[in-house]
């Protein structure tokens, strides 16, 4: 699964730390999600999408092979 959290953060102009604080996780977790090393749970993915005010599918997308 890939995501465009980095782009959405840039649009909203917030740092990894600020996003982490808003969704209640550590900065490491946001960092590993951004670099596609960790796939978040549905709850966390929904929370992240809500921060950006976008539907889930616009922030997280399935890749070939998923």
């Amino acid at each position, binding site marked *: 699964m890939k995501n465009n959290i980095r782009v959405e953060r840039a649009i909203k102009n917030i740092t990894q730390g600020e996003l982490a604080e808003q969704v209640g996780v*550590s*900065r*490491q977790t946001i*960092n*590993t999600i951004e670099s596609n090393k*960790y796939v*978040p749970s549905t*709850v*966390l993915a929904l929370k992240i999408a809500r921060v950006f005010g976008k539907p889930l599918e616009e922030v997280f997308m399935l890749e070939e092979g998923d």
Partner: protein
Amino acid sequence: MKPHFLFPYWCRYLGWGLVIAHVPMSIIGRANGMINPLDNPPTQSLFTGEHLFFICTSLVMALGLFIVAFSREKIEDEQIWHVRLDSLRWAIYINYLVLIASLIFIFDTAHILELNLWVPLIFFIIRFRWVIYRLNRSLSREG
């Protein structure tokens, strides 16, 4: 995510304290001629000198490691849970590998028991801390 059945964050220091405290207790006990019951067939009675020595050394250290292993992180989120479970799985694999190998090649069951007190916890702590260290390092590299 609400972490259940974990000790508070500060307990980690208590755990390390117990692990460190067992070293002088062990040295003093051995200097005074105490023998770990696992090194010698234990006496049947409770709270003899050797029984207390065993509680003050091996069990204190095992308890310390247990508390260190199962203390919360500062931010205990779902990724930490994931790392925790993964490290626990590896610790069980290693423990059974060591257990099976020692049961085949070593005929000293008392020491196999002692080994089993520590191996899963020590391996869990090393693997867990190592993954967290790597996560922190990748974070500082990316700024």
